[in-house]
């Protein structure tokens, strides 16, 4: 589904974050991108989202090089992604409203988009229907992320990109949302790419894990983690071993 080919990217007046980097993601896979601060993992996500563009090489999704954000890709950020002046319901409707605003032009909205702003089933599924009329400032961090997930899933994406979405949440809320995200990704048949600096999160969320190190990243370091996504994986020895393995691999990078 995603092909990163000979990607080189550098911010102006800075050394490259990626140099001649190649990577591939198949449809329906759940990936975690793990690395320390400054390794380029958020940059990689923004490249996949079509929000920044390679200096050379290309990022292809479904065979098409990205030249702008793709209507079928959903992006969820750590925080600040919700409109503070809109209620939970209005925030959840935002993607649909934007698509209705442009109409099915194939650029901002898929060509088969049917104008609608119905998000109630998503509010119910995410357990935030009772908060529909609250503003983001009135709800907890976990509830805000549930709203962001509802907003993203309401536009029926096939690719879900998440940038440290749960890092500011307390442990029980974080674990609950990790499980919910995996369930939803499986239900909707989504390709999931989550960027994180937390080893435990990468081990839980990523069936495949891409390790990034000190830039420039040239070769992808990939670790398979087949247990991720299975019930109670968090309680297994395999999970603990994976965490240990990831820690030692990160330290070696």
């Amino acid at each position, binding site marked *: 589904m995603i092909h990163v080919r000979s990607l080189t990217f550098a911010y102006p007046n800075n050394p490259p974050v990626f140099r001649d980097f190649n990577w591939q993601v198949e449809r329906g896979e759940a990936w975690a991108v793990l690395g320390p601060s400054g390794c380029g993992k958020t940059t990689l996500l923004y490249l996949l989202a079509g929000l920044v563009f390679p200096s050379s090489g290309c990022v292809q999704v479904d065979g098409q090089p990205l030249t702008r954000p793709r209507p079928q890709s959903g992006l969820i*950020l750590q925080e600040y*992604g919700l409109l503070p002046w809109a209620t939970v319901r209005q925030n959840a409707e935002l993607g649909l409203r934007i698509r209705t*605003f*442009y109409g099915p032009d194939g650029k901002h909205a898929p060509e088969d988009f049917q104008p609608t702003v119905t998000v109630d089933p998503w509010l119910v599924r995410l357990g935030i229907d009772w908060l529909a009329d*609250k503003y983001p400032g009135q709800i907890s961090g976990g509830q805000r992320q549930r709203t962001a997930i509802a907003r993203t899933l309401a536009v029926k994406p096939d690719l879900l990109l998440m940038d440290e979405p749960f890092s500011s949440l307390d442990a029980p809320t974080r674990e609950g949302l990790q499980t919910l995200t995996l369930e939803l990704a499986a239900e909707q048949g989504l390709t999931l790419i989550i960027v994180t600096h937390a080893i435990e999160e990468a081990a839980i969320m990523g069936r495949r894990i891409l390790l990034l190190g000190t830039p420039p990243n040239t070769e992808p370091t990939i670790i398979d983690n087949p247990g991720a996504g299975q019930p109670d994986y968090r309680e297994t020895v395999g999970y603990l071993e994976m965490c240990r393995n990831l820690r030692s691999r990160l330290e070696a990078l």
Partner: protein
Amino acid sequence: MSRRAILLAALVLLVLWQVASMLVNKAILPSPLKVAQVFITELNDGLVTHFLASLWRVLASMGLAILFAAPAGLILGQSKSLDNVFSPMIYLLYPVPKVVLVPVVLLFLGIGDLPKITIIFLILFFQILVLVRDQAAALRPELLQSVCSLGAGRRALFRFVYLPASLPAVLTALRQSIGTSIAVLYVAELFATQKGLGYYIYLNGSTLLNYPAMYAGVVAMSLLGLGLYFGVDWLERRLTPWQMAT
């Protein structure tokens, strides 16, 4: 702020005024009761017309200022390169007290409402421009990126992000400028007009020496300012409910 607290404050101010007028005991400071009587009489004798003339000038200035300054502020807030060009000019012009331009504006625009509206417009324009620009520029890139990722281009960003984000800045600018606008309105209405509360106050205070009527004009001008202030408050509750809720 509760209505009860406002009423109580008004009562205290009236009592202080009454005490001051008794202590001074001169025609130049009549009691509030006397002014109230004259105020009611004057309402039927042209005060309403003066009030409406002033109200029109302020409202027209506000409307024009919002119409021109809010989009300009949004554009400068969105575009770093344009802001780099215009910021030095705004930096130099913003602190210039616009009231000193009254004679110049009168010379250029002559008599009638236009110069008076223009001078208040200038004050409001810069206030709204600067606040809206700063508000638009302060929008977190994460917010813009997440909305862009939902398919928003420039037009949708404007409609769904910049426009609602600028509303509080416009209302704050209006609230901050009401006092100055009314003060400048007074100065502007001293020249080349026979309508408006500024003219009415000056005529009664300096020419007719009818002090109760002059105070009735002062009260009317204060009510104009208060009414606008309450109006902005009401708009804020209606248009930016999230600010009240959080």
